[in-house]
């Protein structure tokens, strides 16, 4: 694992582009294929890639386990939070039309926020699952 210089450098070069692509997929999901699910999985794939090349412990220094586990409930909380916010503003649960004076922009705003919730939950869950499997030692 110590001598694979090319792998390590290529990984370091690729990772920012992977994360950038994930953000593109997420925020451009209204106009092109993509959305929270795909972006969350791509972010998780970037973390898994880093862990496969550099080892599990260096990766857990960058993305600690508690952080990945925090993301899991946080995403669901953002999602339901949007729902309760619209309820507080006098609409139905997840009725986005009250988020802005023009219903069209209100819909887009609501969609972006719940997609952020999905991204958070999916990426957190995938990273945590990977950590759980990879951190389990092989039986003697």
């Amino acid at each position, binding site marked *: 694992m110590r001598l694979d210089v090319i792998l390590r450098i290529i990984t370091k070069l690729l990772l920012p582009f992977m994360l950038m692509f994930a953000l593109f997929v997420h925020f451009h999901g209204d106009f092109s*294929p993509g959305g929270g699910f795909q972006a969350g*999985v791509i972010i*998780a794939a970037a973390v*898994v890639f880093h862990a496969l090349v550099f080892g599990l412990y260096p990766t857990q220094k960058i993305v600690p386990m508690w952080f990945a586990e925090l993301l899991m409930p946080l995403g669901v909380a953002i999602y339901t939070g949007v729902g309760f916010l619209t309820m507080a503003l006098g609409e139905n649960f997840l009725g986005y039309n009250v988020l802005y004076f023009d219903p069209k922009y209100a819909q*887009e705003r609501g969609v972006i926020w719940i997609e952020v919730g999905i991204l958070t939950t999916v990426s957190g869950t995938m990273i945590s699952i990977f950590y759980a499997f990879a951190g389990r030692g092989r039986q003697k």
Partner: protein
Amino acid sequence: MSEALINMVLLTLLAAITIGVVRARNLFGVVILSGIYSFLIASVMMVLDAPDVAMTEASVGAGISTVLMLGVLYLTKTHESVPNTTSYAPFFVAAAVFAMLVYGTIDLPPFGSADQPINTHVGPDYLARAFKETGIPNVVTAVLASYRGFDTLGEAAVVFTAGIGIMMLLRRRKKAGEDGEAEK
């Protein structure tokens, strides 16, 4: 016509990979074949005009689940044992199910026709309303996040619950059993 042809070629390759998955005894080979299978089915989805689904399948099916299965093979073992007794009952069950389903399929509308029931009611309705009501050109995102927001909420909850289950099954604390929690 070329669409249907590409579709048929990809589906034939898919069937060939499936035969390989059924026959292989080396689990490492099975996992790699299922990764190839995921990429092929993502291509089929692309031909079926579902780029969102194809993107998800390529990243989830071929990326994450292959890595997880390789991790499990590392933790367990990589070869499937050959059973002492061979039974043909499962083969006949599968063949009978296949025959019955094929018999039922003949009544379905042909592939790719625009006038079948699925394409005359709710689908065109979404296509007509989505942009006017939400201002989002990608109808899949509009339906996913706006019209069917409750579905997606339930689904995020399912992913979260599965994650919790895996944490409970696999997570090992730094000092196992010290805080009174049973390890096994």
